[in-house]
């Protein structure tokens, strides 16, 4: 098996796409709200990877700053999201996403 002697940035991007798709797939198939939430984090991480990869490609650190901001937002989101999950659980005594369908109508 021949290994290339260098990894192009595009590979990183493809890895990012794969991780992102896995996050989406998890979002689609999982029913536990917390797991679904973790899938979202997975997607965010995948996006972060592509930001950093582009940053490397362009040799500018703005992409890293975007990643930084995404992290901060993710942290905020996690805090609020988990609080909401707590609330939902108290109300419905369930973490099944199928049971939470108040978006209907």
């Amino acid at each position, binding site marked *: 098996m021949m290994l290339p002697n260098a990894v192009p940035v595009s590979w990183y991007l493809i890895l990012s796409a794969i991780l992102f798709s896995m996050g*989406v797939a998890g*979002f*689609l198939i999982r029913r536990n709200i917390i797991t*679904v939430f973790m899938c979202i984090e997975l997607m965010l991480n995948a996006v972060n990877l592509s930001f950093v990869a582009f940053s490397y490609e362009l040799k500018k650190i703005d992409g890293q700053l975007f990643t930084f901001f995404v992290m901060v937002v993710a942290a905020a989101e996690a805090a609020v999201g988990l609080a909401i999950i707590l609330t939902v659980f108290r109300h419905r005594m369930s973490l099944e*996403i199928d049971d939470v*369908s108040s*978006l*209907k109508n």
Partner: protein
Amino acid sequence: MTESQSLWLIPILPLIGAALNGLLGRRLPKMAVSAIAILSVLGSFLWVMKCLSALGNLDTPHAEHYFTWIQSGALEIGVDFMVDRLTRIMLLIVTGVGLLIHIYAVGYMDHEEGFSRFFSYLNLFMFFMLTLVLAKNFLLVFVGWEGVGLASYLLIGFYLKEKFAGDAGKKAFIVNRIGDFGFSLAMFLIVITFGSLDFTKVFEAAAKMPVEAHAGILTAIALLLFVGACGKSAQMPLYVWLPDAMAGPTPVSALIHAATMVTAGVYIVARASVIFDRAPIALDVVSYIGLLTAVVAATIGVTQYDIKKVFAYSTVSQLGFMFMACGAKAYSSGIFHVATHAFFKAVLFLGAGSVIHALHGEQDMRNMGGLRSKIPQTFATLCFAWLAISGVPGFSGALSKDEILIAVHGKSEWMFWVGVVTAGITAFYVSRAMFMTFFGEYRGKAHPHESPLSMTGPLWVLALLSAAGGYLMRDLVHSIGPETASHGDHGSLEFIIVAAGLLGIGLAAFMYLMNRGLSQSVAKALGPVYRLVYDKYRVDEFYDAALVRPIQAGSESVLWKGLDVLLIDGVVNGVGRTASAIGGILRRCQGGHVPSYATWIVLGAALVLIGFQLVGGGR
């Protein structure tokens, strides 16, 4: 330019009276209320006298400008007053007769609820009527024109709790509005044609235009003005409001619906004589309408039993005479008849009011009779008016009526003969009313009593005026306008007219004094014709069936419930339903489950990307 006479005081004084009585009247004693009302009109009358004496014989009109009312582009309308010879007559009639009727009303309204409200309205009417006659432009005339309509509406509906009074008031206002519709359209045409509404400018410009052999702009203006006049002066086919207007208190009937307001139409035709002179077609229409109205109203008058209704139809008929005069270009004769009619018709109404007052509200002549001895003063004064309207020589009514019919004779012979017959019918029905009321035996139950001095006093003054007023006013009136044909030898014509009047009286005497039953048998013999006339030719019913009901039903079922609710709202709701139907399909996709939403997003993203690829995008 003569110095200012402060003409504005003439209408403003009654307005102040109206305001005082309207705002404070409920807290003032009746004495104060009547003092305010009478003094304001008296002041106005005296100021008219003072102005007129200061202005002399008015070779040129006297005009005063106060302030600009409306200014838009090239159109400027001022609040301008003007006195010329025509205005002079009208001012004298309005303030003079108005003053007397105010005094009379103090006695008549003594026991009524809403004393101060009544006088407030009456003064308000004086304000608008004086504005109407003093105005120097059409729009200001229109102010008075609509204003007297309003005052008339308020006064007809004065007895608040009576439904028919309110109905009559509303009817009067609305029919008047139809006339005003014509008047305002005439104004629009005047502005477009002459660029102004000012009398001086308009008539100067109009005087330079040729006589229109075929219908042209002047004819249109004249006809539209005449539509307005028809509404206000109760001519065919807009006369229907006037008989109903008798629902108001009797002094109102005398002042507004006999002496002053209803003559506004004649006034405006005389005022716009320059335009009418150049529109012969319009003049013909005026004559025909006047004649038709005179005949129709006179025949209805013959059959009525309500004493006020008889006089109301008589008013309509006499107004027809005035328009006949105008149609024959004898404007000054028309105005002359306005003046004499104001006197004798005021007496007739006030006398009728006195009778009604004496009988505690009874108006049906079948329940009267023999009142000659019970209320002698009323009877005596009414006699003057009776003879005057019947055209007995020596009384003023004969003077003006003769002039009119002679002028009509100059225009068309057959109209003259119809007019003479109508004059005869006039004499007949007034005599009938007199005989039924004052002669024979008393058929009623109430105990009649003579009216107080405040009522009989004005009656006497007006009675004397209806005898002699014609002679006093003749020169004043004839100074107005072009010389009429009346000067000359018309002995034979005059004889015919007088004979017709006397014949009418005689016939009435024969039917109602000597052969009491005759009238019934005549009525029976005429059968359906009599019924038709008695029902006033069923014009009201016709209007009701042809206009009022279709409009109401159409508005309700077609426009409102059909077009509005069903069609337009239906379309709007249909759009809504379609949207929600589509939404119903789409709703399946939104079960409220987050993963299925996510699936849609993924699907969409994939499709967008593939689409990009297909169209060769990406770059």
